[in-house]
């Protein structure tokens, strides 16, 4: 790995109260790649990616320590404001979560408008760009004033992607973004991801191993809060080095 990483995690520990959920994980991601994180439920993968935008600490009783380097900043350094980190590291959640009572337009620009961007011409342009990037523009361009929650689940999830892209993050975290969607919507979002990686670096948690194999460049396998194996996706899925990885991807446990 000679290319400079955009994201480098060193010895990250995280959990709730006295329970450690992520037990000393180190991994890195290069610019414009897709990293898939797989593992059985409760293995700490969600907690792990929620540490990458410091959202984990918003849960009461949560703790996290270690180093997470985003380009040249350790986001867990003392003087770093989590709000500024979250502008650079966007997130898409498991369930589509369009903001209630906001139109499609308002949903997309929520991040910018609430941060003080007011000029309509700028917002309008960003809405179009973001919706095009999220492959939703053609479906909604004539009803931008309709409520965001009036869209179907798959459309709402792409709306959430557009909303995350509108603040121009450098990294996009996706926490099981297709697990609540039907296969057609899932295929659309997978297709979208291969386009998006030209702009952002993607870290995706998924339960769907075919999905990980299809869309990612590298795969990390988590088990009980530890990183068991991390490597090129083709290698992890065809010639896993660790016995536990092989047993998991062949469906023999987990």
């Amino acid at each position, binding site marked *: 790995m000679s290319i400079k990483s955009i994201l480098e995690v060193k010895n990250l520990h995280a959990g709730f109260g006295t329970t450690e959920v992520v037990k000393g994980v180190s991994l890195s991601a290069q610019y414009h790649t897709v990293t898939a994180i797989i593992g059985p439920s409760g293995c700490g993968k969600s907690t792990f990616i929620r540490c990458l935008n410091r959202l984990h600490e918003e849960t009461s009783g949560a703790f996290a320590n270690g180093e997470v380097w985003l380009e040249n900043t350790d986001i867990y350094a003392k003087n770093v404001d989590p709000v*500024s980190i979250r502008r650079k590291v966007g997130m898409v959640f498991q369930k589509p*979560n369009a903001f209630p009572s906001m139109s499609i337009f308002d949903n997309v620009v929520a991040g910018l408008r609430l*941060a003080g961007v007011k000029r309509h011409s700028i917002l309008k342009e960003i809405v179009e760009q973001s919706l095009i990037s999220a492959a939703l523009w053609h479906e909604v361009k004539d009803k931008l004033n309709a409520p965001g929650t009036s869209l179907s689940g798959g459309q709402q999830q792409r709306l959430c992607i557009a909303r995350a892209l509108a603040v121009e993050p450098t990294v996009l975290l996706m926490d099981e973004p297709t697990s609540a969607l039907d296969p057609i919507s899932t295929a659309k979002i997978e297709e979208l991801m291969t386009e998006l990686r030209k702009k952002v670096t993607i870290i995706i948690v998924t339960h769907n191993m075919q999905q990980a194999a299809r869309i990612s460049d590298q795969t990390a396998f988590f088990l009980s809060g530890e990183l068991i194996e991390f490597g090129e996706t083709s290698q992890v899925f065809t010639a896993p080095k660790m016995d536990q990885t092989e047993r998991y991807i062949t469906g023999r446990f987990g």
Partner: protein
Amino acid sequence: MNPAVLSQHMAQRYLRRKITHWIMMGVLALASCLALIPLLSLSVYVLSQGIPGLGINFFTHLPQPIGETGGGMANSILGTLTLVVLASLIGVPWGIGTGLYLSEYPPGRLSTAVRFSADLLASIPSIIIGLFVYTLIVIPMRRFSLLAGGVALGIIMIPTLARSTEELLRRVPIHVREAGLALGLPRWKVILRIVLLGNARAISTGIILSIARVAGETAPLLFTSFNNQYWQRGLDQPSSSLPVQIYTYAISPYEDWHQQAWTGALILVLLVFAMNILTRILLSPRGSS
């Protein structure tokens, strides 16, 4: 067991279950009809007693001195509206702010104490709130006033509004808040602009219901805003209000005043009904947008 015996036994059980079902359904239907009777009979009675006194004068004229017929409750209607506005100015921000704190900030000793006192405050008889405001405002000012009445009603609004706001915001899924935080918005902006504004319709329902509740309060007004037979002359002066005027007229010995009281009661009931219906419209899906 013999299969035939079992199936006969099951058939008997089934019949008995069916009969019990129909009896219980009947009891429940009867109970719900009984619940409607007081409301219906009250509405019919107030309507039939109140309508004869209804006329444009009732809304535009001041009460007449004893012995003269006619007159209206214009000052009382204006007084009640003023009191409701004053009460809302105090109760709405305070109540909603408290509700926001209870729902959005991590549970701790303070929030437990606040929630408990809100529940206690809600169960305190309103006349006690009136006494409290009497010592707090009326005695120092040496005067009954609209202001004192507004404060008393405002205090009554706080606990119910706080709890209804809390319950409502708790139903907003946590991942909506997280989506806001993940966009790089500070927590207070997420709370105000996404959680609160996103549920503005439901919140306004809570506000209207709490207003409807205090609009008919009488006891706390008896020694705060008191009464006045003329137009109100300022926030620091006593004022008439519908409930107190109804009370005064209803216990008087004059036939004419009794009629006025009934008509006042009708207006008050209609006011409260209208507010309740408004909340239904606000809450119905896509009712306003």
